[in-house]
């Protein structure tokens, strides 16, 4: 049985799109998950008994943040070109999005390397370390999942498997990517701007 048979074809009976409702639900769930990690971070701000403390070791990741926020724009532009049927420009902007996201992940890796080996801050050093790595790590893992999804899209497009009927799939992946970005707004503000004062 094909899925076409399952959908009601009557034009006067419209129901919301499955993919959109599904993605909205997923985003609600993920937001609830992040909320708890954010609350834990806030709760433990200034409560570490020993150093290093945030203000000693954290530096605002300007470049990485610009890269991540920029990738929300590039993905939107890429989508526009996909809609217009311009494959070449779609690929360019989509690959640029992936590159920006990848740079962000690279930055997180470098930052963690520095923190662990130069500053001696690990997840078990103090409550700051625990909450910092948990929250930032949760976000980074979402960026990595996003990168995998973005790559799947571009690979299937190169292999000619992405037809216009899939544009809603692509749109949903863009939604997810915007969500990951929005979370970074919260994490950036909280971790790098507010908690460094404690």
């Amino acid at each position: 049985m094909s899925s076409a048979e399952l959908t009601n074809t009557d034009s006067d009976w419209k129901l919301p799109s499955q993919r959109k409702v599904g993605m909205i639900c997923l985003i609600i769930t993920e937001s609830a998950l992040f909320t708890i990690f954010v609350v834990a971070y806030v709760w433990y701000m200034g409560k570490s008994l020993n150093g290093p403390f945030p203000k000693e070791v954290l530096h605002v990741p300007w470049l990485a943040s610009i890269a991540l926020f920029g990738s929300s724009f590039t993905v939107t532009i890429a989508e526009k070109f996909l809609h217009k049927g311009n494959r070449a420009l779609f690929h360019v902007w989509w690959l640029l999005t992936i590159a920006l996201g990848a740079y962000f992940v690279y930055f997180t890796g470098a930052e963690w390397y520095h923190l662990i080996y130069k500053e001696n801050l690990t997840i078990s050093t103090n409550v700051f370390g625990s909450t910092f790595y948990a929250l930032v790590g949760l976000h980074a893992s979402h960026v990595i999942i996003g990168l995998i999804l973005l790559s799947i899209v571009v690979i299937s497009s190169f292999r000619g498997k992405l037809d216009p009927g899939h544009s809603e799939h692509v749109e949903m992946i863009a939604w997810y990517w915007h969500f990951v970005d929005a979370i970074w707004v919260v994490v950036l503000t909280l971790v790098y701007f507010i908690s460094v004062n404690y």
Partner: protein
Amino acid sequence: MASETIVDPDFKVPAPERVGEEGKTWSHVIQNLVFTVDHKKLGLMYIGSGLLFFVVAGIMATLIRVQLFFPRSTFLDPDVFNRFFTMHGTAMVFLVGMPMIFGFANYLIPIMIGTRDMAYPRLNAFGFWVFFFSGLLLYFSYFGAPGLYNAGSAPDVGWFAYSPLTAKAFSRGHSTDYWTLSILLGGIGSLATSINILVTTFCLRCKGMTLGRMPLFVWLFVVVAFLVIIALPPLSACQIMLTLDRYLGAKFFDTQAGGDAVLWQHFFWIFGHPEVYILILPGFAIANEIIPVFSRKPIFGYPIMVAATVMIAFISLGVWAHHMFTVGMTSLGNTFFAISTMVIAVPTGIKIFNWLGTMWGGKLHFELPMIFCLAFLFQFLIAGLTGVMLSVVPFDWQLSDSYFVVAHFHYVLIGALLYTLFAGIYYWYPKAFGRMPNRKLGLWHFWLFTIGFHLTFFPQHISGFLGMPRRIFTYEAGRGWEIWNQLSTIGVIIQIPGILFFVFNLIYSYFKGEEAGDDPWDAWTLEWATTSPPPEYNFEKTPEVRSRRPLWDLKHPDDPDWKFE
């Protein structure tokens, strides 16, 4: 007018042959279950495995009660006792309550909204198997935790796993890790299933099934699924943090390093309180279907029922700390959580009055599902009253962690949830298997179980008042607790044959039950419009509805509901 059909009558199709009747072997049956993505089979698998875990967790409860029969009893070791109450509570909430309600949702929602399957059938199968393995993982801790050589270890930290009981220093070995991973895994399954329920109800309703015409059952499950996707991630976050603490030495709940043990309680109950509504709203959902049909009246106050449900769900997200009155919050905190808890009694009361309003002046039919629902109403009332009592802070200070609390929540979980599950199983049994459940056996089940249940849990109110704490493995003689404990244990012994009658009924009626026909209860929702059991695709042609009671319209073409809506 009489010729006008509201529900197209030829969406029915002949019943497929039953498994087993065409000489299928066991390996066929098993393959059929393992590879299936059919929402009805998955629904029955959820309910079946829920019943299996129910029996296991019930045996543990019985052993706990036997231990408490005499003061200073040595029937169980203290360690074994702790493991039993932990495994009992965890299993009853996560391996019995959750899967049973998802089983009902899976089986019924697609048929009730007139579609052929859940929105994501494979995700559905994934959800079931993840749940099932999480259950096996939990019990595997008996073998795996300290290695088989040291068999007999299992989590012993309570179903709430309060820190620092769960810290590496206090919980050696891996039993707590099995607990954590099992809960995390089960949570993933529940989230997948809930998202599936939401997408199915929003995107796959048959023509004419507007939100205002959905059966209340479906409405309540929409609310439940929303509660799950908001309240379960905090629990998953707890498990992730605890695992980080135990494996990587993180300090989330380590008070030696500035961590906070009470934070666990907040996070746990932010999940834990909504969880009790996740469990009880499906009970209400089942009652919403059964009470009107056996009163021969449409449900009283449909929109108010929906509003009250949404209100309950909303408020339940803001009352979690009534489980923490005794940890020493500020009096502002206590007041807030006491009042918000009491406020929940309002929409809950509205529901009870609407059920009574439905029965008022109706023609009551005391079939098995209805009797269980009536007992549910009465028992839930008692549970609600003791709940409001507990929300009064000084009262809670007196009785927190006493047997009074045990009595309260068992009146909710058994007296309300389990009774509606029994009612639902009897009600939809003819739909699923094409045969009627046996009434005589069902009555034996009802009376034995009900007498046993009240004998078990009512005395616990009293032993609680007399100061008996919960979770103690034994007690001294001469405090006036013996008689109440002994009544309790005798009550459990009476419940056991009740359950045996129930299980026997399920098996016996499958082979020997009366043929049910498509619509044995003369009901009015869509699932009764197809054959019993329904074919794999539910309906030959997707139906079209024009009112809340499509089957009533079909059966009474001269007096259809849609004329009045």
